[in-house]
């Protein structure tokens, strides 16, 4: 059978280029977002890559065929060599995207980025009301962001806004849309929180109810009808309320390559937490070996690793069994089907979380902000838990 044959083929022989390179240039961040996807134990990790090391990574990845480059973090603007990295990336032929909270994005820096050839800026916003925006990020940043949008536009960049939705802000959807319209936003991404890392720690406080999600989607659809071509609005449905899992990273080791602040190469920005896999550091290995040959990147390539129900599922070539990290987080085994799929024997863990979301609002004062102190506390807890996981 042709399909069974493909599973036994060497995975690395089939892999294409890492088209998408995500450079998480730092874990440092002036914000303390409760849904941050950085590892909760980020304070455990070593020194950031130097400018020279990043330049080498950019060159090696471009040679492998990377074409899209995202500068992210943490807050990438914390690095004062970002202009140098952007200039080199542009020179190499990358399409360069800056993914930022906007904190630190002065007019002077935008001008320098423009001169360096930066193609695109994506600004994240937490909510439309100053109180909630500042509460969720634990800083006072709202006015600053509104100012940043004006400067971004003045330098000819399209205004692209990303708002992370969750239980505490999703009912403000009208205000969020109105704010985006008033600011002349051209692309708005309403991304429901994905439950990993800090968001997982805060899941019971952040997971919206089904009614909240449905209402927000209906409001968004009506808004789209009204504004037409003026603004493109993307609404990303939370996978806890979908019947099928997301095609995470378009498949493990298929197009996506993350390099963390301290130089670890990952097939996705959450993969670092998976037990039993080691991911190489760009300080110790060449990127072509890492991408094509390293055991970590080949662990879940193709479909040979799959168990039932994925193994014989006709949809496995479409969603690749969902997300390995979510499978591990919620079932303890990364080779299980993503429990977001209602065919998964573990789907009940999703249903239980959804049921809990329908209960009265938990105490918001229990929310855990992403900061160094909480990271150290969570790191200690992880170290204690680790022997159990082996």
């Amino acid at each position: 059978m042709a399909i069974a044959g493909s599973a036994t083929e060497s995975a690395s022989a089939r892999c294409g280029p890492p088209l998408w390179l995500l450079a998480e240039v730092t874990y440092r961040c002036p914000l303390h977002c409760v849904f941050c996807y950085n590892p909760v134990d980020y304070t455990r990790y070593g020194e950031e890559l130097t400018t020279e090391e990043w330049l080498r990574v950019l060159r090696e990845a471009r040679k492998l065929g990377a074409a899209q480059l995202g500068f992210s973090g943490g807050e990438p603007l914390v690095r004062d060599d970002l202009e140098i990295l952007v200039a080199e990336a542009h020179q190499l032929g990358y399409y360069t995207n800056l993914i930022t909270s906007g904190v630190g994005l002065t007019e002077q820096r935008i001008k320098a980025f423009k001169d360096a050839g930066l193609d695109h800026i994506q600004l994240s916003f937490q909510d439309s009301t100053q109180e909630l925006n500042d509460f969720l990020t634990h800083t006072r940043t709202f006015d600053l962001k509104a100012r940043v949008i004006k400067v971004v536009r003045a330098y000819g960049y399209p205004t692209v806004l990303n708002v992370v939705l969750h239980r505490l802000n999703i009912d403000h959807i009208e205000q969020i849309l109105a704010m985006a319209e008033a600011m002349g936003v051209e692309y708005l991404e309403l991304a429901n929180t994905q439950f990993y890392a800090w968001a997982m720690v805060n899941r019971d406080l952040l997971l919206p109810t089904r009614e909240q999600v449905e209402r927000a989607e209906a409001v968004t659809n009506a808004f789209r009808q009204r504004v037409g071509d003026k603004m493109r609005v993307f609404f990303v449905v939370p996978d806890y309320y979908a019947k099928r899992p997301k095609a995470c990273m378009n498949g493990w080791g298929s197009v996506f390559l993350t390099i963390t602040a301290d130089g670890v190469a990952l097939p996705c920005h959450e993969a670092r937490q998976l037990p039993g896999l080691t991911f190489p550091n760009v300080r110790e290995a060449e990127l072509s070996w890492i991408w094509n040959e390293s055991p970590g990147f080949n662990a879940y390539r193709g479909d040979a690793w799959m168990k039932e129900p994925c193994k014989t599922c006709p949809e496995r070539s479409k969603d690749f069994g969902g997300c390995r990290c979510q499978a591990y987080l919620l079932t303890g085994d990364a080779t299980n089907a993503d429990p977001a799929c209602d065919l998964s024997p573990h789907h009940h863990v999703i249903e239980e979380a959804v049921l809990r979301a329908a209960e009265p609002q938990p105490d918001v004062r229990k929310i855990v902000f992403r900061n160094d102190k909480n990271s150290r506390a969570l790191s200690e807890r992880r170290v204690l838990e680790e022997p159990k996981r082996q």
Partner: protein
Amino acid sequence: MADATPSLHSVPALASMFRFQWEEAQQCHVLLYPEGMIKLNQSAGEILKLCDGERDVAAIVAALEAKFQASGLGGDVLEFLEVAHGNRWIRY
């Protein structure tokens, strides 16, 4: 929305968010845009290469006919440009 149907006098240019380039690793021309990439077949690549905001469609057709020693390419070029404009890759 502007009229999507180009004429021989239209002057197409790449839309501002897009970058057009040759990708060595994939051996094809691509269009890059925020967080995405479109792989182009050979004829799409040859047409877009000439969409420089200076040449009109008639000049683009003439250049392609000369390069490939062909005639009657006008219809195909106009058809592609209509699709490209519909996808917001180009503007006039």
